């Protein structure tokens, strides 16, 4: 039987050095055939070298360790290496995956090595279900990805000179349709964007912004008070802004007395 082989993936050289040194102490028979500095490289090198074991850091550029594991799990045994990640660790403890905490060393690594040694040659356990569970829990930290339900627009982009300014929806008081443009009003001032009010209404969180008029979307948190003017129309006054916004007849139900 050929000597067991392994691949180490971590974006920090010092951490790869550490794991390589410790593995040499705990399991001298294991040959490290390749080292990767990001998730994409890990998947490519694993394809080329076909190692028995892959040690994957979780937070890596390119692909996260968990995404990389999803592409590799039925070809090799996976061990995650992480500095701190309470969610992931909780999930590993329930399942068949193995994990190591940085700094790696001591008895914990010996246990892992013994477990791996006994399993090399067997088919890797099917961990697809656990990985997808981990990925769901990880969407937030891995950057992007969708959480449960749909994603609403949280930033409005406005062209200012050669830059795009990103305006958090929490800063916005209201949107108002203005001929070809839409006016975005904040406490600091206003900017014009090309997105139509209809597109905005579709993409924004309907609990965050209410459509009070055909041409007005107002942020609920920014409403200071609702009054009636002399003609009986409902008018919304917004914090930090002198302007009054009209509520169209069809939308007065939004502000009915409790």
């Amino acid at each position, binding site marked *: 039987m050929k000597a067991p082989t392994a691949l180490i993936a971590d974006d920090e050289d010092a951490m790869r050095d550490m794991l390589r040194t410790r593995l040499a102490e705990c399991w001298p028979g294991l040959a490290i055939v390749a080292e990767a500095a990001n998730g994409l490289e890990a998947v490519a090198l694993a394809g080329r070298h076909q190692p028995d074991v892959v040690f994957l850091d979780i937070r890596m550029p390119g692909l996260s360790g968990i995404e990389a594991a999803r592409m590799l799990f039925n070809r090799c045994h996976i061990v995650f290496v992480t500095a*701190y990640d309470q969610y992931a660790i909780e999930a590993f403890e329930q399942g068949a995956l193995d994990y190591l905490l940085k*700094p790696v060393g001591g008895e914990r690594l010996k246990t892992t090595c013994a477990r791996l040694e006994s399993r090399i040659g067997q088919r890797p356990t099917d961990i697809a279900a656990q990985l997808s569970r981990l990925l769901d829990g990880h969407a937030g930290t891995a950057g992007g990805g969708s959480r449960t339900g749909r994603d609403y627009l949280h930033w409005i982009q406005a062209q200012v000179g050669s830059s795009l*300014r*990103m305006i958090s929806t929490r800063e916005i008081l209201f949107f108002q349709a203005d001929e070809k443009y839409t006016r975005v009003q904040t406490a600091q001032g206003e900017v014009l964007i090309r997105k139509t009010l209809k597109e905005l209404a579709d993409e924004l969180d309907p609990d965050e912004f209410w459509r009070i008029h055909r041409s007005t979307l107002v942020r609920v948190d920014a409403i200071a008070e609702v009054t009636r003017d002399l003609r009986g129309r409902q008018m919304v006054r917004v914090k930090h802004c002198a302007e009054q916004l009209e509520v169209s007849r069809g939308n007065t139900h939004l502000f009915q007395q409790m």
Partner: protein
Amino acid sequence: MKTATTGARGALGFVRELGETASSLWWQFFDWLAQVPMRQLVITWVLALLLTATPAIHPEQAVAFIFISLGLKVLAGGKRKAEIEARRASQQAGTEELERRLVEAQMAALQAQVEPHFLFNTLALIGQLIETDPPQAAQIHQHLIDYLRSTLPQMRSRGNGTLARQITLSRSYLAIMQARMKTRLAVSIDVPPELESATFPPMMLQILIENAIKHGLEPKIEGGRIDIRAASAGTMLQVDVQDDGVGFSRYAGDGIGLANVRERLKLVYGTRAGLQIETPAEGGCRATIRVPFAPDIFAEHAR
């Protein structure tokens, strides 16, 4: 012709000002009347009657004053007094509410700061360097101590509020990140010496820098650079944190960090300060904080 118009406008302005002064005096008198205790009012009446003995005041005027003030006090005084008290109470409640929110926001900023992931990764790095490169291990160890000292709430001392102090704290953090990311992270800091003593709220620069690294540069395979610049324009101090990382998602949540910075700026400076996020045409992300700035006129002499 032109001077005539200016003259007319000047006269109009004068009349308007007179009207405003009169109305404000009247309201001051009304407020005083509403709040003054009955006993003091009676004493004022007696004084007014005594003054009728002098030629300055006619008895009719004193009597008219007594009648008008008594009438107003009885008819409208109570309501006005309640209004004034209510306004004062709500102002005080408003101030207390603002102070409470500011303290809460500051605590949240400090608590959110030391990320366990950062701490454990740095400790693991020090552990590894002790074996391979002890002098560097000692350096990183010192940077970590400096970072924690200025970040952990219990250890925070006064005098953290200058730009120089904030830059020092971030330098320790950036040195640690450079040791971890090696060539994937380039840093430049450009702060003119005259701005170092400027007042700058704590932990804001650090939050922007951590965002730039965590969301901009760490996810980028080849890494990138982060530029920190400070400049003053008149009475405003502007601090930029720019990276050339992966950019910014419109669907990403505002995050606790940025929302906290924005909330604290609003509580301390109202609308005079602001946080602005831009994605420049060349890519990456630029975050800018602007706060009011009073040039330190003693800085030259102190040096």
